[in-house]
C-alpha cells in the first residue's frame, strides 16, 4: 500500500537548509494499522504530507496505493483519504453540505454523494448534527466529522495526522472506537501519526518510531519493548547486605535496599527468582514486575524521553 525509498525533504529556512526528513524507507502492506510515533519536529507530519501529495519530496520516491506521489499525484489523491491535524470542515458550511461537497470533489454524482454523506453521518454518530455549522460542534464531534470527510470515497488507505490530539480522554476513546470499527468493517489500511505513547501502544499493530527525520525503530509494540527495553523485576529487601546478596545471586543493579534486574519475561521469571532468594536466606519485602513502555524504548534509542519534547523548542 505504501512503498517509500529514500524519501527526503529539505526546507529552506533563512537561506539555511533544514533536513526535515532524511531518506526514509518504509513499506506498509494492505490492512495494516501503523502508528508513526515521534516527538514534535521529528518529521512525522512532513513525511505524511509527502505521502499524501501535499508536499513534493526533495528526493527519493514513494508509491502510495499503487501510484507514484511525484509522477501521478492525481492517481494517489483519488485513492487515499486524509484527516489532517487541523479541523477540515469550512466554518461557513453545514455539516452535511461539506460531506456532499467532499463527495463531489472525488467525482461522485450528486445523488451518490448525498447517499454516502448520510451513510457516514450514521456511521460516525453525526446524524443529529447534519444541519449544524462546524463551529457549534464539540471537539470530539468535529474530529469525527474530519474522519467522515476523509472516508467519503471509501478509500483503501486512510492517513490520520494526530487524530486525537487536543481531545479529552472520553472523546479520544470515542474517536478510537470509530476508527477501529471502520477498520473492522472495511479493512481500511490506517496510517496515523501520534505523540501519545499509550495510543500507539494499545491501538497499533505496528509502531514506526521516527526521530530527527530518520526511522529509528520499526516493529510491533511488544517486539520493540522486548528487544529494546525489556522487562524488569524490582525487589526490595530488609537490609542492604541482603540486597547485595540478591545481586550476587541473580544480577541486577542495587540502589540502597532496592534491586533492579532486567529479564526476558518478568512475570514468568519472578516466582523462580523469589524462590532462589528465599533459599539463600534473602528476605524479600516487596517484589514487582515492570513492563517497559514505548517511552523506555525511545529512551534506550535516543537517550531522551519522548514526553520531554511536548514543549516545542
Amino acid at each position, binding site marked *: 500500500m505504501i512503498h517509500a525509498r529514500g524519501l527526503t525533504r529539505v526546507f529552506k529556512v533563512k537561506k539555511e537548509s533544514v533536513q526535515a526528513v532524511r531518506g526514509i524507507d518504509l513499506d506498509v502492506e494492505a490492512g495494516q494499522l501503523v502508528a508513526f510515533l515521534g516527538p514534535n519536529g521529528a518529521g512525522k507530519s512532513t513525511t505524511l504530507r509527502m505521502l*499524501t*501529495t*501535499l*508536499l*513534493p519530496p526533495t528526493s527519493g520516491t514513494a508509491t502510495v496505493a499503487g501510484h507514484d506521489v511525484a509522477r501521478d499525484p*492525481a492517481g494517489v*489523491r*483519488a485513492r*487515499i483519504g*486524509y484527516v*489532517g*491535524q*487541523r*479541523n*477540515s*470542515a*469550512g*466554518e*461557513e*458550511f*453545514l455539516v452535511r*453540505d*461539506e460531506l456532499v*461537497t*467532499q463527495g*463531489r*470533489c*472525488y*467525482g461522485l454524482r450528486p445523488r451518490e454523494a448525498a447517499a454516502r454523506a448520510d451513510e457516514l453521518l450514521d456511521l460516525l454518530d453525526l446524524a443529529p448534527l447534519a444541519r449544524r455549522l462546524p463551529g457549534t460542534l464539540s471537539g470530539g464531534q468535529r474530529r469525527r466529522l*474530519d474522519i467522515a*470527510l*476523509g472516508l467519503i470515497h471509501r478509500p483503501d488507505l486512510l492517513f490520520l495526522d494526530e487524530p486525537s490530539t487536543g481531545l479529552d480522554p472520553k472523546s479520544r476513546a470515542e474517536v478510537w472506537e470509530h476508527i477501529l470499527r471502520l477498520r473492522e468493517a472495511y479493512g481500511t489500511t490506517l496510517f496515523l501519526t501520534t505523540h501519545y505513547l499509550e495510543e500507539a501502544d494499545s491501538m497499533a499493530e505496528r509502531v514506526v518510531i521516527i526521530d530527527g527525520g530518520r526511522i529509528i525503530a520499526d516493529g510491533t509494540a511488544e517486539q520493540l519493548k522486548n528487544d529494546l527495553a525489556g522487562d524488569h523485576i524490582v525487589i526490595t529487601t530488609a537490609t542492604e547486605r541482603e540486597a547485595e546478596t540478591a545481586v550476587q545471586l541473580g544480577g541486577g543493579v542495587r540502589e540502597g535496599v532496592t534491586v533492579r534486574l532486567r529479564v526476558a519475561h518478568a512475570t514468568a521469571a519472578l516466582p523462580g527468582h523469589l524462590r532462589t532468594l528465599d533459599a539463600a536466606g534473602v528476605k524479600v519485602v516487596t517484589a514487582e514486575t515492570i513492563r517497559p513502555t514505548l517511552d523506555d524504548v525511545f529512551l534506550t534509542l535516543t537517550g531522551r524521553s519522548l514526553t520531554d519534547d511536548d514543549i516545542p523548542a
Partner: protein
Amino acid sequence: MTTFLRDTTTVFSREIRPSLRNPAGLLFDMGQPLLFLFLFGSLLDGAVGSSWQWFVPGILVMMCLTGPMSAGYTLLVELIGGAMERLMVTPLNRTAMLVGKSVKAMLTLLVQAVLIIVLALPLGFELHLAGVLGALAQLVVFSVGLGALSFVLAIKSAPGGTLFYVVSQSIMFPLLLLSGVLLPLETAPGWLRALGQVNPVTYVVDAQRALFAGDLANPSVLYGTAAACAVAAIGLHLGNRAMRRGV
C-alpha cells in the same frame, strides 16, 4: 475539460450556499458602499453635475475593490484552518478551485451592482441600457482580476495572515482615494493627479462614468477596459501559478 467544469461547479455550489442560506448578508456587505452613496451623493448633489450619475459608477468600483478582498479573506480563513488542506488532498482541479471561487465573487458583485442601480433609480439616476451592460461586463472582468490577486495575497499570507491585513488595508484606501471615486480629481494639485494617473482603478472609474452616461464612444472606455483586462490577466496568471504550486 468535463472534469474541469464539474470541479468548478462543485466549488461554486459550495461557495454560493452560505449566501443562499442567508441572502440578507449580501445587503449587509453593501452597508458601507450604500452609506457612502447616500451621504456623499447628497452632499455632492449639484457640485459635479448630477451627482448620482457621477457617483453611482464610483460606488460600483468601490464595491469591486472591497468584494474581492473579502473573497480573499474567506480563502485565508480556510487556509489557516484545515479546510483548504483537505480540499488539496482531493483530486479537485486546482484551477477549478480558483475559478469556482471567482465566479461566486463575480456573481455576488453583479447582484450588488444591480441592487445599487435599482436603489439609485428613484433618486434620478438615468439608465442607458447598452452602457449599463457594458459597464457591468467591465466590472466583472476587473473583479475577477482583483479577486485572483487577493487569493494570491491570501496564499502568500498563510499561515500567519498578518501580511493579508497589512497589504489589503494599505493598498485599498490609497487606490480608492487616488482613483477619484469619492471626490473628483480634476481640481486636485498636479502631483495628486499624476499619482491618480498611474492608478489602474482611475481608468476603470472614468470608463464606468462614461458608460453609465451612455457615452460609449468615449476613449476612456477603451482605456478602462484595457486596465481591467490587464488586471484580470495578471491576477489570473499569478493566481493559477500560486494554486498549482500548492498551498
